[in-house]
């Protein structure tokens, strides 16, 4: 289950919905990762662009990986502006056993950071400034550049 929201996430509501949805599924471990906008470098907030078709296929590939380990995943992300101390991202794993859950949430969140087609902008003085220095080129980038 991949859910995209305009603006900040209602974290308690989403965590409860996911917990309740799997209450009878016999998973022993539930680990959500919640990402919240930090106050740093004088920003007023962050803003996000998402390219949904590729986000969905990326997510489906992870869903399949989870399934192979007997686990399931869920994810929520914000589109547009999210202000300081609001949350923009939740990824979660449910699994029968804790080791799988602990390892999977780490891999899932790290690959999300490296590969999910989402672009982040700092909100500074009403401007949207691409967070270039914190961004990661997707694996395989550069094939259209010169000197290939």
């Amino acid at each position, binding site marked *: 289950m991949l859910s995209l929201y305009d603006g900040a996430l209602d974290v308690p509501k989403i965590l409860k919905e996911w917990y309740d949805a799997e209450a009878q599924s016999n998973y022993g471990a539930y680990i959500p990762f919640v990402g919240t906008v930090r106050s740093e470098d004088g920003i007023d907030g962050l803003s996000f662009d998402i390219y949904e078709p590729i986000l969905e296929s990326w997510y489906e590939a992870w869903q399949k990986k989870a399934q192979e380990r007997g686990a399931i995943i869920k994810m929520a992300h914000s589109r547009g502006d999210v202000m300081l101390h609001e949350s923009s991202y939740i990824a979660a794993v449910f699994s029968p056993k804790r080791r799988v859950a602990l390892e999977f949430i780490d891999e899932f969140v790290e690959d*999300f950071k490296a590969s999910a087609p989402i*672009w982040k902008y700092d909100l500074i003085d009403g401007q949207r400034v691409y967070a270039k220095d914190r961004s990661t080129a997707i694996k395989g*980038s550069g094939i259209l550049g010169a000197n290939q």
Partner: protein
Amino acid sequence: MVRVEFLGPIQKDALELEITNLNELAEILQKDKELSEWLQNSAVAVNDTMVSSLDVVLQDGDKISLLPPVCGG
């Protein structure tokens, strides 16, 4: 005709091009000086599937996307 879209922070309108492979696309885009850094650090998808080389034959109606460096979360 093939459609080329520039995603996220690449401030450029989509192009409609008569090309049959990605090598032709690379030649065309490399003439645009404002794109040179983006070409070095962007990934490429054809019809929303990521590709890892230029050895891709394009069909009429294909959609190519350039994905610059990402930072979700």
